[in-house]
């Protein structure tokens, strides 16, 4: 059975290879090949899952050693897989959601001439992501880690002819590279201190080393997680990443890749357990991002960017939970899974809306779409209810647990973290209600404003083919798109209850991640009630602002905070001024230095040699008598020197 693990990765990898190397011959069937291989991966995952369920909790871990990758004296990196409950969860989520999104893309990308390539990239992503979660050592994980970064780069920049897409792709890769630097330093630290970087030995060795070292490794891992999971301060790429086709946003930038940071922290639980300072840093990052993403989400009029803010915020929850240690790990993963369902659903819904609206993304030009897109409306609505934590739906179960765990951290920290988490829940309810209301309810504002606003240029290229000035004709999407949405909506509704009731998920993951029951200072019921209460408040405020009043087509100027939030809280501006400008100045001055100083010294030496030559040359003045003087003088010096040598 273990030997199947490699197939999980191999199937989509094969797909990627075939699709990317196959050339135009495969254009007609490319998307089917991609989808089938993604589904194959899911089927294999399911078989392994069934097999795993058949074993006792302690025997479920499977490993497969493929080959020795980099064997160098003292440094042994293997290509080996480890499939335990944590990995299994991810495998199912990735291949499951991934397959659904493949199906969805068949319809969504139907008119794109480069659809084959798109599926190739998607398969490549699946392979890398599965490698990431299946690796049994940090170095192999790093391969997957950068592999998903590459896939993300390719997919964000899929419409490369748009400069904005190309820039966004590059930015995503670069910011991720900063995070990757953290991961590579972490691996180096592990190698230097433990002599290994395989999960098992490293996590075992944590007991024998000092807290300071664990903190160092932990912080570096956190940096890595920040990059991949778009956490402050490396969050800036996620909003721009929405330049990619919507299925990509759903799969990579909502459901799977961006949660890799959470996986990394949970996987390295033993390290963080031994390093409270690192844990604190994790929780702080999570809490800050949670609020940051939520605030940004409130201000965006671009539906995908609003959802991106939401993603950031929700991952903030997960990171927060992961930072809490054993009381939070399970909930972090649980929220990750439920979030995978509902956020993917929401994105697919957004894609469906855009599909019907000539690829318009500005919510101010939506409104009243529920009549035209009933399926989209219902599935999106269920996702909405799930994310705001409507009781009974999946988000409720997972988010509530995190808030509880945050309070259970204890002390002032606990109160602050819990408070932030609660506040986040309120804002979540607010901005999601805003999205919901602006899109599906209210006036049909698109009737008045057929042209895309210049401030938010159209994102999808198909707009050109539809004709920019035509009034959109909202319509429901084809079934290849709606079916995945329905399936995901199903998951959004029931997954939480399925996991949460009876602590099923806790029991499932406990052998891997450990679990401790937290004891919040107030009763769990109080927490739950207040969660629901803030959710209601958030919904109420949003309704007051966007449900009862008409939404202006042109965005009002808004408060200072709104304006800042529209610009991602000025973080990009900061980056631009400090890093981009500063970097440009640095490189430009270095180019100058290289040319004038480093090169100049050499050229100067050559020039001065030439000058010396020119001067000495003038001694050769053509007059025989002056030559005789030189000889006479030379003879005199020669004699004098010889005599002097004797005298000395």
């Amino acid at each position, binding site marked *: 059975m273990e030997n199947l693990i490699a197939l999980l990765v191999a199937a989509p990898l094969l797909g990627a290879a075939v699709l990317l190397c196959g050339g135009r011959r495969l254009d007609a069937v490319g998307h089917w090949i991609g989808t089938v291989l993604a589904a194959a991966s899911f089927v294999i995952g399911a078989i392994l899952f069934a097999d795993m369920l058949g074993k006792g909790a302690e025997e479920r871990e499977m490993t497969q050693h493929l080959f020795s990758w980099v064997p160098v004296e003292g440094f042994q990196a293997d290509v080996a897989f480890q499939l335990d409950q944590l990995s299994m969860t991810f495998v199912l989520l990735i291949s499951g959601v991934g397959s659904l999104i493949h199906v969805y893309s068949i319809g969504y990308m139907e008119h794109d001439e480069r659809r084959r390539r798109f599926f190739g990239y998607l398969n490549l992503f699946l392979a890398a992501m599965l490698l990431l979660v299946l690796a049994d050592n940090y170095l192999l994980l790093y391969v997957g880690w950068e592999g998903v970064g590459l896939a993300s780069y390719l997919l964000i920049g899929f419409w490369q002819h748009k400069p904005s897409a190309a820039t966004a792709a590059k930015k995503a890769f670069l910011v991720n590279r900063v995070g990757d630097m953290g991961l590579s330093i972490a691996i180096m630290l592990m190698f230097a201190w433990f002599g290994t970087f395989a999960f098992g030995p490293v996590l075992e060795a944590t007991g024998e080393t000092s807290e300071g070292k664990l903190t160092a490794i932990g912080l570096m891992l956190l940096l890595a997680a920040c990059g991949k999971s778009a956490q402050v301060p490396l969050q800036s790429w996620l909003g721009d990443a929405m330049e990619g086709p919507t299925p990509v946003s759903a799969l990579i930038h909502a459901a799977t890749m961006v949660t890799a940071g959470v996986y990394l922290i949970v996987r390295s639980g033993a390290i963080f357990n031994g390093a409270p300072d690192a844990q604190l840093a994790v929780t702080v990052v999570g809490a800050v991002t949670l609020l940051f993403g939520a605030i940004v989400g409130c201000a965006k009029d671009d539906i995908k960017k609003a959802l991106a803010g939401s993603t950031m915020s929700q991952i903030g929850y997960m990171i927060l939970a992961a930072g809490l240690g054993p009381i939070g790990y399970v909930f972090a993963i649980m929220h990750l899974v439920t979030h995978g369902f509902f956020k993917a659903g929401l994105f697919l819904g957004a894609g469906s809306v855009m599909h019907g609206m000539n690829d318009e993304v500005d919510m101010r030009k939506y409104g009243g779409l529920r009549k035209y897109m009933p399926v989209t409306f219902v599935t999106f609505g269920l996702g909405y209810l799930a994310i705001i934590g409507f009781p009974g739906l999946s988000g409720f179960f997972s988010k509530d647990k995190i808030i509880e765990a945050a309070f259970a951290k204890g002390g002032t920290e606990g109160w602050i973290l819990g408070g932030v988490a609660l506040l986040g829940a309120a804002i979540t309810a607010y901005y999601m209600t805003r999205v919901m209301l602006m899109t599906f309810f209210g006036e049909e504002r698109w009737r008045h404003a057929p042209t895309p606003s210049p401030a938010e240029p159209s994102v999808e290229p198909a707009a050109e083919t539809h004709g920019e000035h035509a009034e959109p004709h909202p319509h429901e999407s084809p079934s290849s798109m709606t079916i995945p949405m329905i399936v995901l909506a199903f998951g959004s509704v029931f997954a939480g209850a399925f996991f949460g009731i009876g602590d099923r998920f806790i029991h499932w993951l406990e052998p891997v991640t450990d679990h401790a029951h937290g004891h919040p200072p107030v009763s769990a019921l109080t927490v739950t009630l207040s969660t629901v209460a803030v959710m209601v408040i958030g919904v109420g405020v949003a309704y007051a602002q966007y449900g009862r009043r008409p939404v202006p087509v042109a965005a009002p100027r808004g408060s200072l905070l709104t304006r800042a939030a529209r610009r991602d809280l000025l973080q990009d501006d900061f980056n631009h001024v400090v890093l981009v400008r500063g970097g440009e100045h640095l490189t430009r001055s270095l180019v100058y230095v290289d040319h004038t100083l480093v090169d100049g010294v050499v050229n100067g030496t050559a020039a001065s040699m030439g000058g010396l030559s020119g001067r000495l040359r003038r001694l*050769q003045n053509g007059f*025989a008598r002056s030559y005789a*003087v030189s000889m006479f003088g030379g003879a005199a010096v020669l004699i004098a020197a010889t005599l002097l040598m004797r005298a000395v």
Partner: protein
Amino acid sequence: MNPVNYLYLAALLFTIGATGVLIRRNAIVVFMCVELMLNACNLALVAFSRMHGNLDGQIIAFFTMVVAAAEVVVGLAIIVSLFRSRHSASVDDASLMKL
């Protein structure tokens, strides 16, 4: 008389000759100065020959005279042909090639 004085005289003549080479422009005169230097050498050789009491120095002096004569033959030929081409025997005029 102290034979060393002959040496001083020879050195003086040599220096006069050398100075002449350095300061005179006419090629013939320059050449004559070189001859003076050679004769200074001859004087020194003969003086040493006398001091040492062997004949080597005097033999060399004869050879030197022959060599000087040969030099005159070659030198005058060259100088004369130069003079005929340029209508000038000044060594300073012959400075086409320089730098």
